[in-house]
């Protein structure tokens, strides 16, 4: 045996960025584990990262499409040719005044990402999932108490006191998307005497550990919490001292008037949680020293803004803001700018954001970013001509997979693709790459440098995570960030004058007195000191226009949305006769959503160490009604898509719901392509042409889908 040592770096099998140690022996990664200097945990996805690193299916050289899009036929080319293709097309676009028709779909950690810098230098758009799943909660909390506690800023479970209540409302923290230490922290809190309440139409591992599982009708969260709030106000069970001091004058009276008819009995009819249980939970929360609420899937539904508003109201009237065991209000730690900074394009003027039928109505809303997630619609409308994608798999994740595929292959009268150039960077074969013109071999977290920075974002508060290469890269793979820096140096030397990626990250970190090496020395994670509690007391105000908590959203008075609607998402309320089941698509710890690197990871798709099937989950009550046998293959159909899939009976799903695990359906790669499994996005309506109210009330919401099931 040669030299063997444990080297600190960061996991990137999902977006949680847990600090890890990699044991490298003779230049090969042998094992990995959580870094005890920084929370010390690593989940199964991370453990299986070595299989991603060394899989024989790793993409090793740049490839160029031959044949038509969708055929998945490629030939190897050199990096120079790949760079030339990208540069030529982008220069052409810029020359024609169409730079804004370039979009990069990625998962950046902030505007400090070098890929984002490149997009800005071109004058293109960023397309990101950042606000996609967060917008409703972020905007709700911003409007109400002026802070950014998005869904990745999970409650700090290690601060929950004895008797505190932890509510998970459509949330799967044991899936480890915040940090791999979160499951331990929740279980530790339980051992201290905290209570775990799980509100979910599906009984999962969290429900198995919960003191109380409350099955709910999907999208009913706003109704449930408004029912609780109504009961609390009526019975005087709210935190009066907190509200008297911090809520804007007059808002509590207006809230009481609004909640008058939102009784537990009335709300029970919407959310299907018995009124006595709404009352019981409200009284438990009122008596507890702390209550935390965490939600993820539920905040993505078509009524996300209403649910976010109801959630905010609940936190306020129970006084659970920035207290131990309550909702943390994170702060911002700004990195240094790498000057000169390329200006961002004027998105308001140029944007094709929200290309739904009710586009004009979106002018009512303010969003933190201008995401351009609906690529299919943008291509159809001629607003997207060059598309780059990294660390995402839009063929399986864009709403409405069928329309996305159609858009990728649409041609003009001359027979040219409407989308003129499509480039993807991938570690392992992905579904998306079938439609790409250029496929660039990306690197795993074991091969690359990266500063992962999110001022208020991930990992319940960590600000910076540093990934360092621990082994030599496989083949000719290059990290996407480095590719965009190299392309930037060719096209915009003034904005890419720094030496390399490491120097770029070091300049950024100097803004907080850190460097890549210093962060690594500390265990690869960094955040600025104590989180502190009740910071609004020190400041004497909340960060809102009035300095107080603003329960009434006056900015939406013109559209009658000053207060949250308790109704289910519109998509769940209509066509119930035609499509009687609500689709509940959900994730597990074993797969990083549609990420190709977990779908094609043999250990994560092994039934012993991962998950190898996503059958349709049905309650036996429903199955009996439909006359379907366990294991039979059925047709599941939504208003826009249809799939054939085997059924599995389970008591663990609420009747009226049909469950499908997200993250399957890939046909590229030997591991992923096995089995008769499907991608749930085949059933989800195309965002560009179908979604209407969902976007209005949901912020950047999606995935509210009804289906019917037939033999």
């Amino acid at each position, binding site marked *: 045996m040669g030299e063997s040592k444990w080297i600190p770096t960061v996991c990137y099998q999902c977006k949680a960025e847990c600090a890890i140690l990699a044991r490298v022996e003779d230049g090969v990664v*042998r*094992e*990995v*584990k*959580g870094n005890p200097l920084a929370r010390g*945990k*690593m*989940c*199964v996805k991370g*453990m*299986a990262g*070595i*299989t991603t*690193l*060394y*899989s*024989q299916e790793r993409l090793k050289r740049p490839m160029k499409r031959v044949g038509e899009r969708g055929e998945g036929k490629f030939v190897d080319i050199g990096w120079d040719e790949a760079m030339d293709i990208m540069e030529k097309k982008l220069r052409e676009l810029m020359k024609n005044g169409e730079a804004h028709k370039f979009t990069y779909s990625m998962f950046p950690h902030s505007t400090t990402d070098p890929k984002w810098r490149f997009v800005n230098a071109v004058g293109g758009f960023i397309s990101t999932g950042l606000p996609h799943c967060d917008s409703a909660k972020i905007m709700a909390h911003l409007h109400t108490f002026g802070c950014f506690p998005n869904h990745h800023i999970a409650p700090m479970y290690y601060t929950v006191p004895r008797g505190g209540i932890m509510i998970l409302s459509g949330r799967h923290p*044991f899936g*480890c998307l915040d940090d*791999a230490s979160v*499951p*331990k922290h929740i*279980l*530790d809190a339980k051992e201290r005497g905290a209570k775990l309440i799980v509100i979910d139409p599906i*009984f999962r*591992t969290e*429900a*198995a*550990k919960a003191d109380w*599982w409350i*099955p709910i009708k999907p999208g009913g969260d706003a109704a449930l919490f408004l029912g609780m709030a109504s009961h609390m106000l009526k019975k005087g069970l709210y935190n009066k001292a907190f509200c008297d001091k911090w809520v804007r004058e007059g808002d509590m009276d207006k809230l009481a008037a609004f909640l008058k008819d939102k009784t537990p009995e009335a709300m029970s009819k919407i959310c299907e949680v018995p009124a006595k249980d709404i009352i019981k939970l409200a009284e438990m929360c009122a008596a507890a020293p702390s209550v935390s609420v965490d939600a993820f899937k539920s905040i993505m539904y078509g009524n996300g803004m209403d649910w976010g508003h109801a959630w905010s109201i609940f936190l306020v009237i129970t006084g659970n803001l920035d207290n131990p065991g309550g909702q943390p209000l994170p702060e911002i730690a700004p990195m240094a700018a790498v000057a000169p900074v390329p200006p961002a394009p004027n998105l308001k003027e140029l944007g094709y954001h929200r290309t739904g039928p009710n586009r004009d109505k979106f002018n009512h809303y303010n969003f933190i970013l201008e995401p351009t997630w609906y690529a299919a619609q943008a291509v159809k409308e001629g607003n997207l001509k060059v598309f780059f994608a990294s660390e995402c798999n839009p063929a399986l994740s864009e709403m409405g997979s069928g329309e996305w595929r159609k858009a990728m292959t649409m041609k003009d009268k001359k027979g040219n693709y409407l989308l003129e150039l499509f480039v993807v960077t991938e570690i392992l074969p992905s579904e998306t790459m079938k439609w790409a013109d250029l496929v660039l071999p990306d690197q795993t977290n074991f091969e690359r440098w990266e500063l992962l920075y999110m001022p208020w974002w991930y990992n319940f508060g960590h600000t910076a995570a540093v990934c360092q290469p621990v082994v030599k890269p496989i083949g000719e793979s290059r990290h996407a960030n480095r590719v965009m820096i190299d392309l930037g140096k060719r096209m915009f030397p003034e904005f890419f004058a720094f030496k390399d990626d490491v120097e770029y990250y070091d300049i950024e970190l100097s803004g907080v007195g850190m460097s890549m090496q210093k962060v690594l020395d500390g265990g690869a994670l960094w955040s600025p000191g104590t989180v502190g509690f009740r910071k609004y007391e020190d400041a004497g105000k909340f960060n809102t226009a009035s300095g107080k908590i603003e329960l009434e959203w006056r900015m939406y008075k013109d559209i009658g949305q000053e207060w949250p609607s308790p109704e289910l998402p519109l998509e769940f309320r209509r066509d119930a006769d035609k499509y009687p089941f609500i689709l509940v698509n959900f994730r597990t*710890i*074993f797969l990083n959503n549609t990420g190709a690197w977990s779908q094609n990871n*043999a*250990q994560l*798709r*092994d*039934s*012993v*160490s*991962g998950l*190898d099937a996503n059958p349709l989950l049905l*309650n036996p*009550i429903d199955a009996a009604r439909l006359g379907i046998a366990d294991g039979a293959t059925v047709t599941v159909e939504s208003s826009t898509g249809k799939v054939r899939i085997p059924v599995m009976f389970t*008591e*663990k*799903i*609420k*009747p009226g719901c049909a469950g499908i695990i997200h993250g399957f359906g890939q046909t590229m790669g*030997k*591991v992923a392509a*096995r089995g008769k499994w499907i991608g749930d996005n085949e059933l989800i309506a195309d965002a560009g042409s179908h979604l209407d109210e969902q976007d209005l009330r949901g912020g950047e919401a999606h995935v509210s889908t009804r289906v019917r099931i037939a033999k």
Partner: protein
Amino acid sequence: MKQLSIMVDLDRCIGCKTCIVACRNHYGLVDHEKSMPGSMSHYLRVESECTGSYPNLAEDYWVVMCQHCKKPPCIKACEAGAIHKDVQTGIVLIDKNKCVGAKKCIEKCPYAVIQFDAPGKFAHKCTLCYDRVIHGQVPVCVEVCLADALSFGEKEILLMQADAAGKKVVKKKSTQSILYVKS
């Protein structure tokens, strides 16, 4: 008698399978390049049991590894004499060099935890990380457990700890050297 043990706390195990992959990595059980799902050896597996009917459900998760039996049937089954129970630790060990690949131990194991290496023609299984524990380290699965559901130590001490924490041994799961406990 000395008996080292792992205690599996059913109140904490979430069935996440982290231990399975960490163990595989440590012992090099996976050919990362070529292995396909369904073909990889594993020294642990996760089991679960859901009881009740909607909406009154309960579910437990636990890991199953070699139980390092008090009177191991695998030792009796092995005609080559390749298996023994270590006196110092109570760990049941297979001597790869003595194993003739008869698979008798696999047939007789009541917990179905013994693996077979087809190319090398030998049986192998969880050693309770013998090479680690005799140097004072804990087994890999215990070190990496996401939920801190696993503890390692002398069986008698673990039993005492379980008692102090108000947990009972779930004898239905095993009456051998691995302890399954629950409040």
